[in-house]
């Protein structure tokens, strides 16, 4: 009787997985390096606007942020437009002057990055920039995303 042997490849069929931890670690290290953990808790909602002719802020140490947008009241509700510096909402616009002046004393080359919600009224932003002028922090940056 003829004996047929099943043909089969002699090579192993497994995908070698021994290098997987290395790959994962590499990704992990990439994300660890690029991650900037959220430094402040946003109390206002900000939807950035877009622009074409933008520049990057290279020296992150110099930057101080001012957030302007509708206040977050609940998961979905938002209230009036408010100004937030660091962790707190600044109710009195005139207080910005002293806050920013103190910051300028600490870092004379301060850049103020204004992170403003796209639908905010420009009037409020002018009030803030006026305060910045009084404080002497003249280098500002309107945060925008790149227009695609």
């Amino acid at each position, binding site marked *: 009787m003829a004996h047929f042997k099943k043909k089969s490849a002699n090579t192993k069929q497994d995908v070698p997985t021994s290098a*997987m*931890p290395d790959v*994962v*670690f590499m*990704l*992990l290290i990439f*994300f*660890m390096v*690029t*991650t*900037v*953990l*959220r430094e402040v808790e946003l109390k206002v909602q900000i939807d*950035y*606007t*877009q*622009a*074409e*002719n*933008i*520049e*990057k*802020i290279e020296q*992150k140490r110099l*930057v101080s942020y001012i957030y302007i947008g509708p206040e977050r009241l609940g998961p979905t509700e938002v209230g009036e437009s408010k100004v937030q510096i660091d962790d707190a909402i600044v109710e009195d616009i005139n207080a910005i002057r002293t806050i920013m002046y103190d910051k300028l004393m600490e870092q004379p080359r301060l*850049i103020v*990055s*204004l*992170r*403003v*919600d*796209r*639908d*905010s*009224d*420009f*009037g409020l*932003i*002018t009030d803030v*920039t*006026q305060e*910045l*002028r*009084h404080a*002497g922090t*003249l*280098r*500002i*940056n*309107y*945060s*925008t*995303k*790149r*227009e695609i």
Partner: protein
Amino acid sequence: MALLNKKKRPDPEIPGSSLADIAFLLLIFFLVTTTINVDTGIGLTLPPIPDENVEPPPIKERNLLNILVNAQGLVLLDETPSSITEVKQKVKDFITNCEPGNPCVENLSEDPTDAIISIKTDRQTPYNIYINMLDEVIGAYNELRDEKARALYGVPFSALEETSEQYQSIAKDVYPKKISIAEPDEGNS
């Protein structure tokens, strides 16, 4: 012999099979917490608060390009209504007026170094409309500077070092960016 009968000890080993799981867990944590930062934007230098005792320098009316933007996003360019897409070209025409090769048109600037762009909005104007406007004006300046850099040095303006002499000469002496943000009107709504 007693020594030979001794049981063979298992190799001391740290189990390494769960290493991948641990790494994945960390990876997922960092993936979730990562926020890609938007640290790009339009840079501006605000003018200092003017000294009350010092008279502001006189500015000729023709060297000033008034851009008015109302709350609906309608644009008035030196008294003529226009659309936001035209602004860039008009700003360029305004700045380069009287340059060699361009005819001198009355009402437009006498010299690029004298040209001032003034942007004025209503208090109710949405921020993104204002940013679009500013973007167009800065875009006009960038294009002009780029053309100049190509003509003079054969490289785009963005390729010049910020501290280099060429950069400074174009940014300061040829096309200085003079953008004035006027106090907004109270508006009526």
